[in-house]
C-alpha cells in the first residue's frame, strides 16, 4: 500500500512545484497582460468601419508592444463584430469583460449600440473608448446628465456635420437646401444642427425639401427624385459608408450634379466612400460640387505625426486609414497616457487621469472635455478631389474651423430631433 502512495505524493508535489514555477507572471500593473476588447461592424455595407477599427487598434498595439508596452505591460486585443445591433454589442461587451478579461473596451460603430452599452458599462465598470458612434446623447445624456464615467469618446460626434454651415455660409448663390437624410437619429440630428447654424448665418436661406432613407436602403432613386423636385441649390446628405456610395452613384445617373450648386456628403471623407467613388472623381463627374467632411481625414493635418501614421498604416495594411482607424489608434494611445498617469488599471483612477489631458494624435491635438468626457479636436471640410499623391481621392480646398464655434458645449440644451 505504501509503495503505491509514495510515488503518487511525489508526483503531485512535483506537479504543484512546476505549476508554481510556470504560473502567470504579472507586469507592474499586477496583470499578466493588458487586454483590450474591441468591437465594430464587420459585416454588411458598413463593414469597412469595423475593419478599420480593428486595423487601427492592432497597429497601435503592435507599436506600443514593440516599445515595451504600457508601464512594462504587454497589450493583447480581441476584436468582435457588433453587427450594428445593440443586443450583439452588449453581449460582446459582457463576454469581453467577464469571460475574456478585457481591461478596456473600444469601438463601436452604431449609435444604437453605444446607447445600449452605456448603462451596462457602469455595471461592468470598464472604461469604453467610443471611436465612431456619433450620437450626441451618448456624452450629453449618459455622461453629462447621468454621470456614467466609464464612457469616454475619442471621435467627433454628430456636431461635426454642422461644419457645413460654416463651409457654405458665404456661397450666396446657394439659398435653397434640401436633405437626403438617414432615417434615424443621426440623420435628424445632423440636419437639425446644420439648419440651426445656417439660419444664424443666412436668414435668406430656405430649407425646401427632405427625403428620409431607412438604414440599409439600396435604392435611393425615389429619394433623389423627390428632393430634386423641390429645385434645391444644395443637398445635405447623411447616409454613410456603402450607402453613401450608392446614393452618389444613383444621383449621378439622375444628372443631379448638373442641376445643384453643391452637395455635402457628411461622412464622405471616409476612406471607403472615397474608394467607392474614386473613378467618378477622377473623371470629374461631380463637377467640383461634391463636398464632405469626416471625423478624421488622412491628408490633414500636414504634420509629421500624421504623415508618419498614414505611411505606417498604409505599409502595414495596404489601405489608407479612415476615421474609425485613426480614432481607435488614438484611443489606444490615450489609454497609454492615462494609465501611465494613473499607474493603475482602476476605472476611477484612469478616468481621473484623463482630466486635463491634451494629447498629440494623428488627427491633431485632442483635448479632454471633462463635463461630458468628450475629446475635442478640429476636423476640416472640403471639396472631394483627385490628388496624384494618393491612390484614392482626398478632400481638397480644406477649411478648418475652431470646434468651439460649431460643437455643442455644456450645459447642453435638448436638441430638436424632429424631421
Amino acid at each position: 500500500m505504501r509503495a503505491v502512495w509514495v510515488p503518487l505524493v511525489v508526483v503531485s508535489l512535483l506537479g504543484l512545484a512546476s505549476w508554481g514555477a510556470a504560473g502567470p507572471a504579472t507586469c507592474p500593473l499586477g496583470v499578466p497582460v493588458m487586454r483590450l476588447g474591441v468591437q465594430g461592424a464587420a459585416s454588411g455595407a458598413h463593414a469597412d468601419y469595423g475593419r478599420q477599427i480593428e486595423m487601427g487598434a492592432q497597429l497601435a498595439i503592435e507599436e506600443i508592444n514593440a516599445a515595451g508596452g504600457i508601464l512594462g505591460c504587454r497589450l493583447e486585443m480581441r476584436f468582435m463584430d457588433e453587427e450594428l445591433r445593440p443586443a450583439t454589442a452588449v453581449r460582446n461587451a459582457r463576454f469581453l469583460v467577464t469571460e475574456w478579461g478585457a481591461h478596456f473596451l473600444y469601438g463601436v460603430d452604431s449609435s444604437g449600440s453605444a446607447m445600449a452599452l452605456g448603462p451596462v458599462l457602469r455595471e461592468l465598470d470598464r472604461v469604453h473608448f467610443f471611436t465612431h458612434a456619433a450620437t450626441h446623447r451618448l456624452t450629453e445624456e449618459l455622461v453629462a446628465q447621468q454621470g456614467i464615467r466609464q464612457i469616454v469618446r475619442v471621435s467627433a460626434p454628430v456636431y461635426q456635420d454642422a461644419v457645413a454651415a460654416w463651409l457654405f455660409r458665404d456661397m450666396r448663390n446657394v439659398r435653397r437646401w434640401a436633405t437626403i437624410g438617414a432615417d434615424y437619429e443621426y440623420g435628424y440630428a445632423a440636419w437639425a444642427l446644420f439648419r440651426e447654424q445656417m439660419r444664424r448665418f443666412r436668414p435668406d436661406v430656405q430649407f425646401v425639401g427632405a427625403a428620409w432613407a431607412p438604414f440599409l436602403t439600396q435604392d435611393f432613386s425615389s429619394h433623389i427624385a423627390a428632393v430634386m423636385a423641390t429645385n434645391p441649390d444644395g443637398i445635405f446628405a447623411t447616409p454613410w459608408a456603402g450607402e453613401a456610395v450608392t446614393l452618389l452613384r444613383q444621383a449621378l445617373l439622375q444628372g443631379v450634379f448638373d442641376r445643384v450648386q453643391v452637395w455635402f456628403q457628411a461622412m464622405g471623407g471616409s476612406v471607403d466612400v472615397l474608394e467607392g467613388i474614386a473613378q467618378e472623381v477622377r473623371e470629374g463627374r461631380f463637377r467640383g460640387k461634391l463636398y464632405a467632411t469626416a471625423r478624421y481625414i488622412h491628408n490633414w493635418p500636414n504634420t509629421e505625426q500624421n504623415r508618419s501614421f498614414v505611411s505606417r498604416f498604409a505599409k502595414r495594411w495596404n489601405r489608407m486609414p479612415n476615421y474609425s482607424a485613426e480614432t481607435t489608434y488614438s484611443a489606444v494611445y490615450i489609454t497609454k497616457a492615462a494609465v501611465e498617469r494613473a499607474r493603475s488599471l482602476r476605472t476611477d483612477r484612469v478616468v481621473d487621469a484623463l482630466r486635463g489631458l491634451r494629447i498629440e494624435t494623428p488627427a491633431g491635438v485632442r483635448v479632454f472635455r471633462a463635463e461630458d468626457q468628450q475629446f475635442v479636436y478640429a476636423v476640416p471640410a472640403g471639396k472631394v478631389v483627385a490628388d496624384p499623391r494618393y491612390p484614392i481621392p482626398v478632400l481638397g480646398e480644406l477649411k478648418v474651423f475652431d470646434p468651439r464655434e460649431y460643437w455643442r458645449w455644456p450645459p447642453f440644451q435638448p436638441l430638436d430631433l424632429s424631421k
Partner: protein
Amino acid sequence: MEVLAYQGLIGLSSAMYLWLISAGLTIIFGVLGVLNFAHGSLFMLGGYLAYTLYGLVGLPFSVSVLGSMAAVALLGAAMERGFLRPLYGLDPSYQLLLTFGFVLLLDDAVKLVWGGVFRIPPIPRWLDGAVVVFGRPFPLYNVFLIAVGLVVGLGLWGLFDRTWWGRSVRATAADREMAAALGIPTPRVFSSVFMLGSALAALGGALGTPVRPVAPGIGAAMIVQAFIITVIGGLGNLRGAFAGSLLVGVLSSYGTLWFPEFELFFVFAIMAVVLLVRPQGLFAS
C-alpha cells in the same frame, strides 16, 4: 404634373427590380410550397458573382449577369436535390429552418471569399447616361431595369402558359400525386423550378451591382421586401407578385415624395391595407 409622372416612372423602375426578386420567391413557393428564406442570400451571391466576373475578371456586364445566373441556378439545384428533397413530406417548419441555415452559411461563405467590405464595380458605359423624360434626366439604367422586368414577366408568362414544361409545372403545383401518376417527372420539375427561382434571385443581385454595392447581408433587407410583395400579391401567385411589386414600388415612390416622414412605415402600411381588404392577397393562389 411632370413631377408626379417622373416620380411614378422612378417608382416603376423600382417595382421592376422588386419584381425580379419576388418572382423567383413566388415561383418556388407556388410550386414547391417552400418559403425559401435563402432567396435573399442567392440574390446576394448573384451580386458577388457578377461583381467578380464583371468587375474583377473583366467580362462584359451582360455575360457576367448570365454567368452568375447559371452558377446560382446550379447551386439552387444542389440545394434542392441534396437538402430540400428529403424534407418535402415533413412539417414546413423543417424547410424554414433549413433555408434559414443556408442564409447563415452563405453569408459567412461570402465573407470568407470576398471579405466583409462592400464591393462596387464601375457602371457599364452603355448604361451610364440618361434620357430626358418629363423635362428631367431619367437614367438609362432605370430604363434598362424596366425593360428587363417586362421581358422577364413576358418570358415567365410564355414559359408557364405556352410550353409543355410550364404545363407540367402547373400540373405539379395543382396536384403532385396526380401529375406523377400521369408520368410527369415531378422531382425533375421541382429541381428545374428551384433552379429558375434561384436564377431570378441572382439576376436581381447581378443587375444591381453597378449602382448598389454588394456586401454580406444585403439579401436580408431585400428578402423582407420580397416577402411583403408575395404576401400582398397572394402567396405563390405570379400575377400577384407582379401586381404587388408595382403597388409597392410605385406607391413607395409617391410616399417618399408626399409623406417623407413616414418612409419607414410606408411599405408595411401598404401591406396592412391590402390584407385588411383582401386577407388572401390581391390574387389568391
